């Protein structure tokens, strides 16, 4: 039995894929932004905050990092309505992804903050810098430089992981693929094409982050 590959049906549904792609991009960008805010605030609370708050942040981080994203997503989308909180698929996806990425970002930012030697901070103090200046010039800038590569790869992985939102039938790129598949039965072709689109997105994001890194850090290096 021979099989002839037919990509025509897949490309004929390009507007469908485009809609999905847009939601995937939206989800990724919102998640990265919110995740970064949660990560910064959480890491600051974890490192400099009072003990009970630092502990609470640690519990959040461990709870999220040791359970699968898809279960968190199901808990929020299918579970929360019984507690009276009803979210539509897109919102539930955004909430779950942000909560998830936030926990990973906290760990990365914390590691970056803790990697700044105490002697650096003391040197800043002895130069008469104010706490704000020390935070800005001595801690956050070098720390950001240290954590940037890990953050970038975590963000790219998160962009790929947004594909699980298709499982609560949010209309993202992967869900678009499933719908095209059920209409055309071109299983292999549609998933191959979509995998290619994800790959292109991943490379694009990496390139973007690499450019951002040079833009921010290269000139002021050393």
């Amino acid at each position, binding site marked *: 039995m021979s099989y002839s590959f037919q990509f025509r049906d897949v490309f004929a549904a390009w507007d469908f894929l485009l809609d999905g792609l847009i939601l995937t991009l939206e989800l990724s960008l919102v998640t990265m932004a919110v995740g970064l805010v949660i990560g910064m605030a959480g890491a600051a609370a974890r490192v400099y905050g009072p003990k009970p708050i630092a502990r609470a942040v640690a519990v959040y981080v461990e709870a999220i990092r040791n359970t699968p994203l898809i279960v968190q997503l199901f808990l929020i989308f299918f579970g929360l309505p019984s507690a009276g909180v009803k979210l539509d698929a897109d919102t539930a996806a955004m909430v779950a992804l942000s909560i998830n990425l936030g926990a990973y970002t906290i760990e990365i930012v914390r590691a970056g903050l803790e990697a700044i030697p105490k002697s650096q901070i003391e040197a800043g103090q002895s130069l008469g810098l104010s706490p704000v200046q020390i935070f800005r010039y001595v801690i956050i800038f070098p720390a950001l430089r240290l954590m940037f590569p890990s953050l970038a790869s975590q963000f790219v992985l998160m962009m790929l992981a947004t594909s699980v939102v298709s499982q609560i039938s949010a209309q993202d790129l992967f869900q678009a693929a499933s719908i095209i598949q059920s209409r055309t039965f071109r299983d292999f072709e549609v998933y191959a094409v979509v995998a290619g689109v994800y790959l292109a997105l*991943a490379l694009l994001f990496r390139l973007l982050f690499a450019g951002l890194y040079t833009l921010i850090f290269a000139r002021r290096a050393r």
Partner: protein
Amino acid sequence: MIREFNVNDVLYLVAAMRWTLALTAIAFAGGGLVGLLVALLRVSSLPPLRWIGTIYVLAVQGTPLLAWLFVFFFGLSIVGIEVSPWIAAAASYSIYAGAFLGEIWRGALQAIPKQQWEAGSSLGLSFGQQLRYIIVPQATRLAIPPTVGFLVQLIKNTSLAAVIGFVELTREGQLTTATTFRPFTVYLTVAALYFLLCFPLTQASRRLERRFHGAR
């Protein structure tokens, strides 16, 4: 028929953990083999081999695991073979884990100073012998903590196999939800069970890292 969520359901979920563990074991074994190959390709002295390794890692780390699962499960039927969820999952996870383990192990291999290789070759050891007697024993120490850390990722990612109908912990949770209609309790239980599997490993990874780091 809707019934209550009771102790039996919890026991069923606990029992389903064995398939999560089995899948993790298969993925780790398959991924380990692929990963070893990828790591060796990536440190090879022949550029074309290095490129193959690089492209493999780039491609796998740039595509969602879900896409691999779907390609293998739905896509392979076009070649005329009916693929079971087991085979689709085993193949997808080996490919996926291979890329990540390969990168971890390459990092460990490259962290060993070049002089160690040179010392080996000046003693007349072949490439294989240098790897076996000099590089790998040292690199293993470096590789263990991140490998254990990746195991946690792997356990969590086996949950994605649920979407192709592989009955492990998450799928069992979906099935239990369908009969008891208690999604919140069920998924919370499922999450707790994953936590019980993963948290000790996370802690172990951290402890190992501290120990090996301190010893250097």
